[in-house]
């Protein structure tokens, strides 16, 4: 059965274009112009995913996002934001959106994000509210700002690769991740072919975490299997 997507945006032309584009890619598409219309549509048919514009007349996207999240912890939400406004991005994630996409977006990118969110939602149907930060062993990985904060409060910026790798570890504590799995995590990188081996990336990450002694205690090597984060992780919403 086709997945149902509800688009909330105040520009009627854009709504229709998105309806055409996503419809052409195998989704059932429903549209609404504002919060009130959104609630009406949701009463008729529950969507599998809501695409929410940040700038809406009346109740804005963040308010609607919070309301949706309060009603359902599992409904996936994709926010359309102003371009690259990092504060908006962080706020959006704090309000419980699963992902965000800045306008003007590439339609194919939108499609990829929608599929990725739906896949994740399908994997763990009873999933928790998206975390804002993952804390372990004195470190805090902030998912919005994509950086690490040490116990001393110093912010440690991460490269894209380091962030993806660490996020994968922190979301799966005490689970061995194979090199192939980690390669998949990293392959989503934006630019260029992946040119460093997973091992090099892991050793960089260990250095970031001050865990680069002879016997790493935090990111442990599991012989012939892969790597594992040996720490309890606290999810902070």
């Amino acid at each position, binding site marked *: 059965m086709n997945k149902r997507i509800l688009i909330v945006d105040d*520009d009627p*032309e*854009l709504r229709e*274009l*998105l309806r*055409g*584009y996503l419809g052409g890619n195998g989704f059932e598409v429903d549209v609404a112009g504002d919060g009130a219309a959104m609630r009406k549509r949701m009463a008729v048919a529950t969507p599998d995913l809501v695409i929410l514009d940040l700038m809406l007349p009346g109740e804005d996207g963040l308010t609607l996002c919070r309301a949706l999240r309060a009603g359902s912890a599992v409904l996936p939400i994709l926010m359309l934001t*102003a*371009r*690259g*406004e*990092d*504060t908006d991005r962080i706020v959006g994630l704090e309000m419980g959106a699963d992902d965000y996409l800045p*306008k*003007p*977006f*590439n*339609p194919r990118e939108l499609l990829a994000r929608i599929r990725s969110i739906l896949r994740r939602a399908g994997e763990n149907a009873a999933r928790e509210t998206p975390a804002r930060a993952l804390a372990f062993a004195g470190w805090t990985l902030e998912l919005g*700002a994509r*950086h690490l*904060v*040490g116990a*001393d*409060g*110093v*912010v*440690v*910026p*991460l*490269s*894209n*690769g*380091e962030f993806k790798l660490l996020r994968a570890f922190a979301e799966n504590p005490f689970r061995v991740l194979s090199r192939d799995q980690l390669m998949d995590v990293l392959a989503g*990188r*934006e*630019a*260029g072919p*992946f*040119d460093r081996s997973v091992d090099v990336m892991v050793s*960089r990450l260990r250095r*970031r975490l001050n865990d680069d002694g002879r016997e790493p205690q935090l990111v442990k090597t599991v012989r012939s299997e892969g790597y594992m984060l040996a720490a309890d992780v606290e999810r902070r919403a």
Partner: protein
Amino acid sequence: MRFLPKSLFGQIVLALVAGLVVAHVVGAWLMVDERTRFGERLRGQYAAQRVAGFITLLDGTAAEERRRVVRALSVPPTRLSLDEPWQAGADDSPDAAAFLRRVARELERSAELQVLSIRRATPRAEERPQFDRPHMPPHREAHAAPRFLVMVSAQARLADGAVLTIRQALPEPARDWPLRVLGLLALLAVVVALLSGWAVRRLTRPLSALADAADGLARNLDQKPLDEKGPQEVQRAARSFNAMQRALKAHLETRAQALAGVSHDLRLPLTRLRLRLEQLPEGEARAAMQRDLEEMDAMVGGTLDYLRAGNDTEQAVKLNLVALLEGLAEDAEAAGAKVSLHGTAQPIAARPQALRRCLANLIDNARRYGGGAVDVTLDDGATSVEIRIEDRGAGIPAEERERVFEPYVRLEASRARHTGGAGLGLAIARAIARTHGGEVTLGEREGGGTTASVILPRR
């Protein structure tokens, strides 16, 4: 004129102290002069009484007794004589007339009197008056003894017609500077100088603050307003300055809002265009249009980034610069550059996302125009950190090095479309560095290429 102080503070203090010194010197001189005049009047009075006394005494003395009495009275500083004749050519100066009037006032009868001379003379030893300081120790007396005397010579006809000639020496006191009063004046001068120095410093300090603020305004319109306190004029200047800063800011904000509005509103049609393009069949025309769209997108995005670079709401945190640069180096290497990192630095207070964008823009420029090999050097200092990003590219001519920081300015050589970019990367980098109180400059690299230097103060 070379030695005049340059600062307002120095000049005002100099003027105050100089005025004070002049006023004190003149005042002290006037006071000493007044004392001297007073002393002279007293001595004149004394001499007149003495002369009148001799006349009265000798009037009442029998002629045969007079010589004995005159001899007895003729001890320094007075000499009396009955042997001189009435002399012609009396002194008729105003001093002499005044002296005669005094003597006449003291006499019980009117007598014929004349002053022969009133003059200054070096006293002979026996004339040195010993009379008014008997308590002085000898050495002190020798020192304090007046060096000049006023010699008054006068003649009077006694009641029986005999002529009495009187020579009376009066001590002329050394100008006796009253040390205690002068000391007090000096103390007053020092205290007033110190107090006025303090007061003037207080007055001129807001002026320096104003100058600093005017300097700072050119770099940062968001600097905190001046304190509107101090004397009225200073308050007014500070208020006007703050008002000017607000007006400038409002003006710039209006223009930025207009630009932001256009850029912002372009995003919706751009998004729609992208979706419409997806409806077209694949082909060369569609690919070309997509490239054009990407470019417009980059311009709009760059403009918004630039406008936002100056007034970001992101919070400053303590930031690990080494990790930031290593991460950026890795991302740049993924884009095909070869980045070497040198040096290290302690964490610094900065806005992480903004600083990442600033440094990413510079590394990206070095990668694009610099032939791919990029050297990044961290230079840590007590008051600031310098980050140098160096390439081995063609370099930028010295006269263009400032111009390329202006928004939308690209060098002719790089204007070719395929290199992309709206000409905002450096403008954004500089705006971000300046919001951190720092600066970005471009220079020539030794051995060829460009050095981009970011200086971030530790605050």
